[in-house]
């Protein structure tokens, strides 16, 4: 249990956490940013398996929450992400961007619960889940779940799962770029906005490096 005081700002960054279980309550005017990044480790013997649960409550008005999740998984690794974003009081803003890149036989799961309670008017909530499958043996399960009980709110969600853009690959090859490098560049481009959410430059650079190892 973590409590964010009135007008407090917090940024939490997690990289390859085994299992994450966060339960955070935000008070009036507080803002929270959570960045969770997972990637397969080259030297690992055992398949990596992790489940992350992020539960956030807006207990005061005018809170802001941003949740960024990225999993770049290979082999038989599996990472599950569960978010529960609860707007208990109005005037809040929440933004969730969840991205998975799955290669080999990797598995991913995302369940996103977004709840806007009856007296939580004038809330703006957004949930985006985008998944990139690099192999036909990789699987992604995604289940957005919106429960909206207030009427004066803006709530949006979208989930897409697809493959690398073949026409972009050919375009890059036509400019002399090796296809392996072109794929890497496209995957990196896909992940970039999540990494950019880490405001500490040193930390971001270090994690970006580990992602592409």
């Amino acid at each position: 249990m973590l409590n964010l005081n009135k007008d407090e700002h917090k940024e939490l960054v997690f990289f390859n956490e085994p299992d994450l279980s966060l339960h955070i309550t935000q008070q009036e005017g507080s803002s929270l940013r959570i960045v969770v990044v997972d990637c397969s480790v080259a030297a690992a013997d055992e398949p990596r398996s992790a489940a992350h649960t992020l539960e956030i409550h807006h207990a005061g008005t005018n809170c802001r929450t941003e949740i960024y999740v990225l999993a770049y998984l290979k082999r038989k690794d599996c990472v599950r992400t569960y978010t529960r974003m609860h707007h208990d009081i109005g005037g809040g803003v929440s933004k969730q961007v969840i991205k998975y890149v799955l290669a080999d036989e990797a598995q991913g799961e995302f369940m996103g619960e977004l709840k806007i309670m009856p007296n939580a008017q004038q809330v703006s909530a957004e949930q985006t889940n985008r998944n990139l499958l690099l192999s036909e043996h990789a699987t992604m399960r995604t289940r957005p779940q919106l429960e909206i009980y207030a009427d004066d709110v803006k709530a949006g969600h979208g989930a897409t799962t697809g493959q690398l853009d073949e026409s972009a690959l050919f375009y890059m090859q036509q400019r002399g770029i090796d296809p392996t490098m072109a794929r890497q560049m496209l995957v990196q481009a896909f992940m970039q906005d999540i990494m950019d959410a880490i405001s500490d430059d040193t930390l971001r650079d270090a994690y970006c490096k580990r992602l592409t190892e």
Partner: protein
Amino acid sequence: MSELLVIKNLHASIQDKEILRGVNLTIRAGEVHAIMGPNGAGKSTLSAVLTGNPQYEVTEGEVWLKGKNLLQMPPEQRAREGVFLSFQYPVEIPGVSMVNFMRTAVNEKRKYEGKEPLSATDFLRLMREKKKLLEMADKLNNRSVNEGFSGGEKKKNEIFQMAMLEPCLSILDETDSGLDIDALRIVADGVNRLKTPDNSSIVITHYQRLLDYIVPDFVHVLANGQIVKTGGKELALELEEKGYAEFE
């Protein structure tokens, strides 16, 4: 003049449908060849096959670039050998910046030629210099490749990339489509200024308009997957007047 590109009896199909049915064409260094023809004649197929687009299958024939067997090379090697395609529909690549994209492309080519990669300063200077040629904005560098570009900006960006990569054979596939007259003039000016006695161009177009600006040495009519007529630049005017009816 030496032969730069030799196409012999080229047949190609897409999804078992034969589009090219025996194309023969020889291009010498320094020449500009226009390929005109009705829709569906195989103009874009020819550019796709020359650049190694995996959607098309070559079923017969040969293509030689400076004496090397082009059809045996993967697309990226053809590019590094100097084959450049200005795409009819340039692809948007969100998240890949122009500067990153171009630096990778330029340095891959240099590596292939056994040269050292360009330093960051030299590379940026080169970008600046070539952007001027196409009257392009400075903010281009950090924009994603073609993302949110207007039709005209996309076509200028193709010719900008051509200027950066200095190909020996550039194929301009319907570069005039979607361009207003000012953009057309800038693009054509760029192409003309990049012309040297050693490089050649294939200009694919449906209309004669572009050829007022990029003057061809030869005009070929491609119809039903074959080159059915070849002439000088006056042939383009004749086609503009009479249309393609006699070839269909």
